[in-house]
């Protein structure tokens, strides 16, 4: 494992009005690593990713990506720096076709040929999308939309990919596929920060993992260790 860090979050504080969503959260993703983040509803997982993306403002702390301080940077600059976020709830452009949705993923990629190549690869990865390339995103089934959301992020060929609950609403087989895809992407050198409710699936592919509770890291360690930690098993995996 390389020593350089793709992402370092230190002592992050975020609040929504009166609600303190993150309080002193710190975590890091090494280059080439898959890091899983687990946590209850409302623990602050989504907020963490959104703050890295620059969509939510931090009131304290620092976010560093590939050695550069990106705290409260402009979202487009952050995407430009190679950090791509597959948001919670998929956020497909409902009136754009599947194909156009994928093109949007390559918004900051100047090279048309590269976009075309990567789009083809996404269609190979998710043949269902290939069949539906003309269909409007909003009319896809829940699972199809999730595939599209992941596919869209792939077009940008990010250096760091952050996924927020990518397995939500997916059939078991597809969960397996998606996890496989994430692993595969990772193997091409992309670092991954993976937020999941499906802890079992996430821990299976992750190198390390964090458990977040009420806006701060409660547990962290190697994925394999956490998968057998009794606290994690009780709360997130079940017997």
């Amino acid at each position, binding site marked *: 494992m390389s020593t350089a860090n793709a992402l370092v979050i230190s002592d992050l504080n975020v609040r929504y009005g009166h609600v303190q969503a993150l309080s002193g959260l710190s975590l890091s993703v090494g280059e080439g690593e898959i890091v899983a983040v687990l946590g*209850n*509803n*409302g623990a602050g997982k989504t907020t963490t990713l959104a703050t890295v993306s620059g969509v939510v403002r931090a009131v304290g702390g620092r976010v560093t990506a590939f050695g550069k301080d990106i705290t409260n940077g402009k979202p487009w600059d952050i995407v430009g720096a190679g950090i791509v976020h597959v948001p919670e*709830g998929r956020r497909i452009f409902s009136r754009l076709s599947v194909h156009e949705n994928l093109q949007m993923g390559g918004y900051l990629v100047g090279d048309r040929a590269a976009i075309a190549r990567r789009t083809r690869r996404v269609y190979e990865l998710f043949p*269902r999308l290939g069949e*539906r390339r003309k*269909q409007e995103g909003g*009319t*896809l*089934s*829940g*699972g*199809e939309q*999730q*595939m599209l959301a992941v596919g869209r992020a792939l077009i940008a060929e990010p250096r760091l990919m952050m996924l927020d*609950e990518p397995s*939500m*609403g*997916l*059939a*078991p*087989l*597809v*969960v*397996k596929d998606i996890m496989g895809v994430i692993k595969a992407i990772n193997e091409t050198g992309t670092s991954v920060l993976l937020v999941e*409710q499906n*802890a079992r699936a996430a821990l299976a592919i992750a190198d390390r993992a964090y458990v977040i509770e009420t806006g701060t890291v409660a547990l962290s360690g190697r994925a394999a260790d956490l998968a057998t930690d009794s606290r994690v098993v009780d*709360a*997130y*995996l*079940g017997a």
Partner: protein
Amino acid sequence: MTAPVEALLVVEDLRLAFGGVKAVDGLGFRVMDGDILSVIGPNGAGKTSAFNCISGFYKPTGGRITFLGQNVTGMRPSAMAARGISRTFQNLRLFGDLTVLDNVRAGMHLVIDQRFFDAILRTPRYRRGEDEATEKAHYWLDFVGVTANRGAQARNLPYGEQRRVEIARALARGPRLLLLDEPAAGLNHTEKNQLLGLLRCIGDLGIAVVLIEHDMGLVMEVSHRVVVLNFGREIAAGSPAEVRRDPAVVEAYLGAEEAS
């Protein structure tokens, strides 16, 4: 071909096409009183679409839906609801700006006995109706275990609580048949367990439940019967144990791992 009397819902040869896409393609199944039936299948198999037909949101392009012995094919959603079909949505559809209590009162729209002038004149019937609605709303919220402030706006509730409110809202109508579309999505392990208990309780009330779900743990635990769809058609049906062993299901949906 006549349906046995006990069948609450009979779906026969249901078809729904969007342009070229055949979302539902000759689906048939039936739900008995007190049944907990799970509908599973790959993404895009047509599960939600079938629900939408049954609850009246889509007009089927073919086939027949019989509820309580009556042909209800193609009726509008409110008519379906009036006949006793309640549903929840795959993506939460709470009335976010309104209070939790109001959300549940929405479910009681058909039950509250109140006329136009009752509200204006504040008649005793109005007061009685309102009090009863509040009381029932609390009852159902207790039933599903909502612990948050019920006077608060629904959107300010945690996700899991919102899921429960949505179920309470659907129950408040006093349905004969409850359609739940992926109620466990986004819930964590503990919450899923709680949901499991809730589903059983609903079954105990004598309300038939049809459940779309991708979480096999939940499906296997709670369902009496399972119907498996692919490409808008049934590819298998039976008890959870039977379905889980069915090679077609394993291949199309579960994968070798889940089946074991």
